[in-house]
C-alpha cells in the first residue's frame, strides 16, 4: 500500500465506495439504477435494490448541517449536538434505547453531521425495515430530552472534541486553516464547535434548530439492499407520510471575498516532528458550477490521482523535493468548494524550497502542461470507479444521500460517468490556469506551514 499520511479527498460522489450488478455494462449505464418517489408531504424516497445479502441500509438525510446554525449567538456545534441527542429518547423510546433495539435485531446504527447535512443510518436484516422506519420517523417529531441527558451528552461531545482536535496539533492547525480559508462563511467553524463555545450549548440551541429544520420536506430517505421499490415506498408512506411538513428556513451560504493580501499561517509546535506544507484554494463547488466541478474532479485525478501521475512523478520521483504530495478537491458543498494541497519535504529540503519547487511545477503546467493522455486516463479511472460502486449495500446509499442532500439530483448521480467523459483537456487546462497559476491565481491560496519547535539554542 502506498503511504498517504493524510487522506484529504472527499471523493466525488460517485467514487470510491463499492460495486455493481450489470454483468456487462453498456457505455454509461446509470451508475446505480436507483428508483425514486416523493411522498405527499414532500419527502423524497430513493431505493437501490441489491439482493446479494438479506440486508438493508436505511438512511435518513436532513438537508441541514452546522453551516445552518444561527450566527452571532455565541455558541457553536448545535447541529452536531442535536445529532447526538437524537439518540436520547422520544416519548415512546427511552434514552439510549434506539441503538439497543437495532443491535438486538443484529443491526448497526450511527449518524454523522457535516457543514451541509446530517444523516442517521441503520443496517439491519431486511425484514426489519418497517420497524426501523417507525423508529426513525418517531424521533423526527417526538424528540424528548431530560436535562440530565443534555448535561452528560455535552460532556461527551467536549470529550469528542478533545479526542479529535485538542489532543493533536495537526488537527488544531487544520481547524485554523479552514477558518482562514472561509473568512466570511460558516464553513470557517468546526462542525463540532469551538472549544470555548461548546460548553454554552443548551436545550434551546438544539430544540430551535430541531424544530426549524427536521421536517419531512427537508429530509431524504435512501434505502439500499434486499428490498422492493414499491414495498419501500408503501412502508415509507405509513411511517413518514403521516407526518405533516412545515416550512423551513432558506440555506444561507455567504461567500468569502477576494482578499488581496496573502494569508500565511506558520505554527511551531513542540509535539510536531514532521514539517508539512498545506495550501488551500477557494474554488467553485457543484451547485455553483457543475462543469467546473467535473473539471476539477478530472484535474485532481489527472495530476495527483496516484503514484504514476504528474505531481508525484515530478516532485517525488524525478526532482526528489518531496516525500509525498497530494491534491484533492472538495466540491461537495452547498456553498463554496475548496482545493487542498498537502506535501512533505524530502530529507534535506526546506519547506521554503519545497514551496518554490511546487510553484515551479505548477508554472510548467500553466498554459499547455495538462496532457491529453493524462486527462483521458483519469476519466477512464473515474468512470471505472462507478463500476465498483455497487459492490456494497451501504455505499450507494451514502453516495446518493450525500449528493441529494447537497442539492444535486438523482440524474446528476446516475449520469456522472457521462459528465466526466465530456470533460476535455482544454477544460482541465482552463481551470488549472485560472485557479492554480502561482503568478496570477483567481484567488490567493491560504498557505499553512506546520513545523517542529524552533531550536532555542540558535
Amino acid at each position, binding site marked *: 500500500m502506498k503511504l498517504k499520511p493524510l487522506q484529504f479527498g472527499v471523493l466525488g460522489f460517485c467514487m470510491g465506495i463499492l460495486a455493481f450488478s450489470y454483468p456487462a455494462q453498456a457505455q454509461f449505464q446509470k451508475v446505480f439504477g436507483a428508483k425514486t418517489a416523493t411522498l405527499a408531504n414532500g419527502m423524497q424516497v430513493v431505493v437501490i435494490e441489491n439482493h446479494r445479502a438479506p440486508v438493508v441500509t436505511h438512511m435518513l438525510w436532513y438537508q441541514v448541517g452546522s453551516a445552518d446554525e444561527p450566527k452571532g449567538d455565541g455558541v457553536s456545534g448545535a447541529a452536531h449536538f442535536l445529532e447526538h441527542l437524537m439518540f436520547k429518547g422520544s416519548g415512546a423510546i427511552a434514552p439510549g434505547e434506539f441503538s439497543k433495539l437495532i443491535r438486538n435485531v*443484529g443491526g448497526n446504527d450511527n449518524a*454523522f453531521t*457535516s457543514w451541509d447535512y446530517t444523516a442517521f443510518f441503520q443496517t439491519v436484516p431486511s425484514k426489519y425495515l418497517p420497524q426501523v422506519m417507525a423508529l426513525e420517523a418517531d424521533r423526527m417529531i417526538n424528540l424528548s430530552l431530560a436535562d440530565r441527558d443534555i448535561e452528560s451528552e455535552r460532556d461527551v461531545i467536549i470529550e*469528542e472534541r478533545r479526542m479529535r482536535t485538542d489532543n493533536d496539533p495537526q488537527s488544531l492547525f487544520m481547524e485554523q486553516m479552514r477558518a482562514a480559508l472561509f473568512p466570511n462563511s460558516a464553513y470557517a467553524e468546526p462542525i463540532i464547535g469551538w472549544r470555548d463555545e461548546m460548553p454554552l450549548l443548551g436545550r434551546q440551541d438544539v430544540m430551535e434548530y430541531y424544530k426549524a429544520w427536521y421536517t419531512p420536506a427537508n429530509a431524504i430517505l435512501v434505502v439500499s439492499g434486499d428490498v422492493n421499490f414499491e414495498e419501500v415506498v408503501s412502508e415509507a408512506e405509513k411511517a413518514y407520510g403521516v407526518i405533516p411538513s412545515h416550512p423551513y428556513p432558506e440555506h444561507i451560504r455567504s461567500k468569502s471575498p477576494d482578499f488581496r493580501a496573502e494569508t500565511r499561517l506558520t505554527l511551531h509546535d513542540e509535539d510536531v516532528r514532521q514539517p508539512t506544507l498545506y495550501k488551500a484554494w477557494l474554488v467553485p463547488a457543484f451547485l455553483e458550477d457543475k462543469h467546473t466541478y467535473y473539471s476539477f474532479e478530472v484535474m485532481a485525478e489527472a495530476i495527483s490521482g496516484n503514484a504514476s501521475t504528474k505531481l508525484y512523478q515530478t516532485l517525488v520521483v524525478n526532482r526528489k523535493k518531496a516525500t509525498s504530495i497530494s491534491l484533492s478537491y472538495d466540491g*461537495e458543498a452547498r456553498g463554496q468548494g475548496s482545493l487542498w494541497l498537502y506535501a512533505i519535504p524530502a530529507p534535506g529540503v526546506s519547506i521554503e524550497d519545497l514551496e518554490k519547487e511546487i510553484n515551479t511545477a505548477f508554472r510548467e503546467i500553466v498554459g499547455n502542461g495538462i496532457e491529453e493522455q493524462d486527462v483521458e486516463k483519469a476519466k477512464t479511472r473515474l468512470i471505472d470507479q462507478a463500476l*465498483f460502486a455497487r*459492490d456494497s449495500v451501504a455505499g450507494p446509499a451514502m453516495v446518493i444521500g450525500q449528493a441529494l442532500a447537497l442539492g444535486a439530483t438523482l440524474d446528476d448521480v446516475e449520469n456522472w460517468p457521462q459528465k466526466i467523459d465530456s470533460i476535455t483537456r482544454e477544460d482541465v487546462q482552463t481551470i488549472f490556469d485560472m485557479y492554480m497559476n502561482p503568478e496570477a491565481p483567481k484567488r490567493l491560496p491560504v498557505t499553512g506551514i506546520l513545523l517542529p519547535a524552533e531550536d532555542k539554542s540558535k
Partner: protein
Amino acid sequence: MRNALMRGAYLLGFAIMVMSLGGIQDARASILKIQTVKSDKNITAWLVEDPTVPVISMRFSFQGAGAINDPADKQGLSQILSNTLDEGAGDLGSKEFQAELSDHSISLSFSSSRDDFGGSLKTLTKYQDKAFDLLHLALTKPHFEADALRRMKDANLARIRSNMSDPEWLTARLANAVLYNGHPYAQNSGGTLSSLPKITTKDLHEKFSTQLGRDRLLISVSGNISAEELSQRLDEVFGDLPDISTVRQVENVTPPAQAEVIQYVKEIPQTVIQIAYPGISMKDPDYFAAEIFNYILGGAGFGSRLTETVREQKGLTYGIDSNLSEMDFSSLLSISTSTRTEKVGEVLSLVNAEIDKIFQTPISDRELVEAKSYLIGSVPLGLTSTDRIAGMMMGFQIYGLPANYLDIREAGLNKATKQDVLRVAQRLLDERHKTTVLTGAKQEIGPVRYVENIPDIQ
C-alpha cells in the same frame, strides 16, 4: 468521510457478522457457501463465487512471513518489502508498473502484519488478465530498485514523525513494548527512525526469496470468477513461487508477570487509556462464550456495560470499548478509552467497578439473549461486498478455522449458557496480569511507572 463527524467510534468496526436469530432455523444451507478450489500444481484457494458483480477480489497471505522475522536493527523490513513489491517488476519500471495498475483501475496492495505477509487484489473482471499478470510479475520479478527503496523509506520515516504527535499511536506503541517485552512482537513493525535507513536492497531480496513460498500460502477469492477459471489463475499467478520457504520460529508470549500501570507523560488535555488482559484463542471451546462476555462488557458499543456507565451516565468519554484480538503467539482482551486528565482516576475506578460487577451481579437472561441475537444476527452485514467476503475467509484461514466456521459459530453461540460466560469472564479477567497503559498529563491515580521514552520509535 472527512467532512462529517461520526457519532460513535464504532461505525466501521462491525464485527464479523452473519444471521438468523435464536437457533430455531430448520435444517438449512450454510450461511456462506465456500468452495475449495485446488489447482493442477496443488495450490488451494477458498472461493465464494458471485456472478452478479463485475468485480473479483482476492486476498493472499504467507503465514509466518510477517514482521516477526525483522532483525532488531532492521525493524520495518517486512513493511518496506510490502511497499516496494509494486515498485517495478519484469519489464516494467516503477512508474510503468504503477501506471499499468491505475490505467486499468486495479487495486493491488501488499501488507505485512506481525505474523504474516500478504496482499490484496481487486479488479473489474474486464481487466482480470492484466491484474493477475501484474500480481504474478510482482511476486516473481520485483526490481527493488534503489530509488524506489529510498522513496519508501522516506515515506515511512515521515509517517513515523507525523504519528509522533498522535497520542493514540504513542499509546499503542507503549502497550506493545510493555505487553510483549522480550518477544519479537515488541518490535515496531512499521520500523523506527534509526532502523529504516539500514534496510538495503539485499535485505529485500533475501526476505523475498526465502520467506514467500507456496508452503505457507493462503488464498481467498470472491466475485465474478468460476472455480475452473480460478484454478488456472492460481497456477499462473502463484505457480512459480518456491515450494519451500523458511521463517523464524517464535515462542508464545508470556503475559507480564505482574499488574502494572505505565504512563508516558505528555501535556495534552485528554489522556488515552488502554487496559489489557491475556485473551483467548478463536479455537478455544470457550471462545463463543468469550464473544458474548466481551459484547456485554464493552464490545457492543451502545448498550454495553462500559459504554452505559462511562459514557451514557457519566459523560466521561466519547468512546469506551472492549475487544478480543488474536495473533499467532498471543491473544488479548483489551479495553480502550480516553478522558480528560482530571477524570482518569474516576474512569479507571468505574472500569474496575464494572469488572467486579460481572461477578457480583452476573449477566441477566436478557443480556445473554440480546448478545446472541446481535452476534448471530449481524453476520450478513459482513457479506455485502466481495472484498469483505474475501477478507472474512482469509481471517478464517489465518486462524486455522474451517470453511463452515460461521455455522459452527452460530451453533456455539446458541449453546453458550450464563455459566459458560461467567466461567470465561473469570478466566479472562485475571487481575494478576492486567496491564494499564496511559498517555497524558500526570495526575494522582496511585502507583504509576512513568516512562520517559517509548521504545522502538527513535
